[in-house]
């Protein structure tokens, strides 16, 4: 018989089954998700969806020789009957594995105040205000012979974590974003805007279209610019495109093993090294207002500086880079010990880049630039050389010539080859940090805040014909 369980029941029964079958420890994670989306192209809706998902991950631990082994099994659509099979499989997997290198005592804890609450959910109703204004903007674009393409997504993830050591945690996180591209009638020019949101009450499709129209207007004059090193204003979205990649390279184990830009020549990590003479910082904090992230470690597998034994570990605000100096790398309890730092600093699903004294907006940096480029966003960013964190990628949907502090026309696209670590050492101007939405990574890492930056010599390696 198919009996669906509540998240809390799943966890309690899973832990009880694990104990009954002889597991030394157990962690059960239940994730309930709901999402709804709208997608449009050529001024009409193309697809949509309303999805509900559920997943259960059972991590069983057993003694293994002189250590502890872990077995991990994940399933969606778990029923009372299938839960027993999952727990048994996790224990069997643990028993067949050798001692885990990252084994540590499971995290202790208590029952959270909101433990008993049901999962939160989103519905298509979240677009109650947005959808009509989107419809209006699509009609308006049709009348004005512009074309709009875009995507709006809203999701709510409610995560429950329970352990044989008493941990009972629950947290619900909403997340939304909209990304919209405009093109002129002959498709020769394009512009892009994007923003993250928690509930779409603060997103106005008509206002987004107004900004797209303004930028498309900048293409009334077009200018060819050669490849080379150009003074370039990167708005917060483009800075997030680059800095998110840097953030993901902060893995302490990889650095310790001599595989990243944060590895020290001859061995060890570069913690303590000065990366930039500028007063630039990167930090994460799960409690950041508007960028809230899970407040505890969540690991469905071990790897690098992530450990299944750390599930539920309270995440503390962490300075990765402070005043230009590398302060911390991402570590589990295991890798913290390995690389010789006093405490674990697991990854957190948000970050803020800030520059002391940074003030003003992208427009202010443009106003201070005599001759250079304004780039909207970056795309298809991939690592070329891990030793320098050299990244390649393209400009996209809006590169503009700046002359005398004003946008003077639209410019061709470029391929770039640049290192975000080097950029932190080379920028010569910075604005205030604001919430940003990365074009490249924002669909699954949208909790970022970054400043606009002025880079005096951004390396445009070649011209791209794309428009």
């Amino acid at each position, binding site marked *: 018989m*198919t009996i669906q369980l509540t998240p809390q029941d799943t966890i309690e029964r899973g832990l009880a089954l694990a104990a009954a079958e002889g597991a030394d420890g157990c962690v059960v994670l239940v994730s309930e998700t709901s999402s709804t989306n709208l997608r*449009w*192209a*050529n001024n*009409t*809706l*193309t*697809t*949509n*969806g*309303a*999805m*509900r*998902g559920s997943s259960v991950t059972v991590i069983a631990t057993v003694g293994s020789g002189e250590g502890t082994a872990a077995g991990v*099994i*994940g*399933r*969606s*659509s778990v029923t009372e009957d299938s839960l027993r099979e999952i727990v048994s499989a996790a224990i069997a997997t643990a028993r067949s*594995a050798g001692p885990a*290198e990252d084994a540590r005592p499971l995290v202790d804890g208590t029952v959270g105040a909101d433990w008993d609450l049901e999962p939160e959910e989103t519905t*298509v109703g979240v677009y109650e205000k947005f*959808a*009509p204004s*989107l*419809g209006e903007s*699509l009609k308006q674009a*049709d009348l004005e012979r512009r*074309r709009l*393409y875009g*995507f709006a997504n809203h999701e709510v993830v409610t995560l429950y974590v329970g352990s044989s050591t008493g941990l009972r945690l629950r947290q619900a996180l909403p997340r939304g974003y909209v*990304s*919209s*591209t405009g*093109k002129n009638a002959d498709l020769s020019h394009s512009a892009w805007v994007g923003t993250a949101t928690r509930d779409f009450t603060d997103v106005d499709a008509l206002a987004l279209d107004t900004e797209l129209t303004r930028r498309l207007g900048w293409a009334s004059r077009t200018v060819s610019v050669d490849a080379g090193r150009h003074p370039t204003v990167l708005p917060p979205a483009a800075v997030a495109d680059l800095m998110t990649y840097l953030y993901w390279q902060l893995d302490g184990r990889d650095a310790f093993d*001599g*595989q990243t830009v944060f*590895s020290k*020549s001859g*061995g060890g990590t570069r913690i303590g090294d000065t990366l930039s003479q500028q007063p630039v910082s990167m930090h994460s904090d799960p409690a950041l207002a508007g960028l809230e992230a899970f407040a505890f470690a969540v690991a469905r*597998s*071990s*790897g690098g500086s992530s450990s299944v034994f750390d599930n539920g570990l309270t995440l503390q605000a962490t300075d990765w880079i402070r005043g230009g100096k590398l302060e911390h790398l991402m570590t589990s309890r295991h890798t913290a010990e390995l690389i010789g730092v006093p405490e674990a600093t697991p990854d957190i699903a948000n970050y803020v880049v800030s520059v002391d004294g940074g003030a003003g907006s992208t427009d202010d940096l443009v106003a201070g630039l005599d001759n250079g480029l304004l780039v909207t966003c970056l*795309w*298809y960013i991939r*690592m*070329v050389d891990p030793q*320098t964190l*050299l990244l390649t990628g*393209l400009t*996209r*949907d809006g590169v503009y010539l700046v002359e005398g502090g004003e946008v003077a026309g639209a410019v061709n696209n470029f*391929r770039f*080859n640049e290192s975000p670590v*080097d950029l932190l050492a080379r920028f010569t101007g910075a604005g205030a940090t604001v919430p940003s939405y990365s074009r490249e990574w924002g669909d*699954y890492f949208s909790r970022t805040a970054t400043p606009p930056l002025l880079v005096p010599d951004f*390396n445009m390696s*070649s011209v791209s*014909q*794309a428009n």
Partner: protein
Amino acid sequence: MSLSLHRRALSGSLYKVDTVPEVDASFLALPRHQLAQAALQRARDLGATYAEFRLERIRSESIALRDSVLESANDDEDLGLAVRVIHDGTWGFAAGVALTEDEAVRVAEQAVNMAQVSRPINAETIELADEPVYDDVTWLSSYEIDPFTVPRADKVALLTDYSDRLLKADGVAHVSVHVATIHECKYYANTAGTSYTQQRVRIGPNITAHAVAEDRFDSMSTCAPPAGRGWEYMTGTGWNWDEELAQIPGWLAEKLAAPTVEAGEYDVVIDPTNLWLTIHESIGHATELDRALGYEANYAGTSFATTDKLGTLKYGSPVMHVTGDRTVEHGLSTVGYDDEGVAGQQWDLVKDGILVGYQVDRRMAKKNEDLLGTPRSNGCAYADSSGHIPIQRMANVSLQPAANGPSTEELISRVKNGIYIVGDKSWSIDMQRYNFQFTGQRFYKIVDGKIVGQLRDVAYQATTTDFWGSMEAVGGPQTYLLGGALNCGKAEPSQSGAVTHGCPSALFRSVRILNTTQEAGR
């Protein structure tokens, strides 16, 4: 210098070899027919003019070792149902996870509701190209050993052995191993009467050796591509692991000590272990009709190969013949039927260097029937799970070899001053598929037709039509290899697709080579 690949007989295996694999019994035990009937009937009752139902179960296993120690071993399963409808000329899609008739009905209702909410912003009446009805048919991919029947400990033992071989070699500081296996079961039914059950198995291994010198570090990965095969792939069927693992430490040491490349224009011979990725990015995506029509303009991008150029665009040199297919054995995009109930097919995309075809789904086939010259979809609809809507995804897009064509060594012999490129690494291409840049695992300097040693810090950069136009020769069938990827991303919300690209070695003239150290300003 290319890897010699032999199919090796599986001998002494302790595992069941499914000479005639069967659909997993536990999937067949699910109430797929009842769920489909409940959902499709509810959609009809609510006025849907068309509806389709999918029940999908995707099992995936990921095993990772670091320095021969098991780092993680995960076993996941994604199971759920989905309903897509056309209601009042508008798509509506919904998905759920509970496998009950009540949930199937609820999901159908939600799909219709999505169509109704979306109707005011839909300016196009959705119509689909016709397709014959396939009544309760079954299709399975070609493999010998279901990876999920092999004990985990046996898999880890084999991978530990592979890792140890590298870790014990001089100059290798660290070794990382990762193997992903996927077992996909799908039941599909639509209101036209088609229904099928389909099972596919695929595997993606990667083994990388890392070296750390005083002033730099580097790595060397295996070139074994992901494949539509079972666990037999890891024991030598379809790839010669013994030979490749034995050579990696030497290749890595040579690379670490190699001279840096002098940037400039070179003739290049590209091995299929690298060229598959260039095909993927510059041909595979560029010949997707949804991109050419602008549907991906906000995300994955569009294509320079627009519909007005069909039949006239000079994509490359006359030796260029590229096919799309969903039928090749062991292909990652090979299916019996796609996610709109269309049977797998093969067709030309580029013939004699001219753009002649696209990859399409049923909606695009109907809307562009005159352009395409056929009323039928070529079967390129795919959703990566029950939780996602089917979209046009990539077929196996392959560059055909020349009958009686040259070997890789013969291609190299035609080069006076050039580079032979092996294995894939970094990749990037612009939003319209013009400008690309790739690196690789190994770069061999060619002087007077002979390889004289490795180079480092190499990337090649080109514009798609210039690059394929510079292709002077393609190798023969003896150089042909199926490459591919498990992780091709597209669409919003983002979906991951697996796809194979077959190709021979090929010779290109005057390709721009960058020095990546100089690009970094060092």
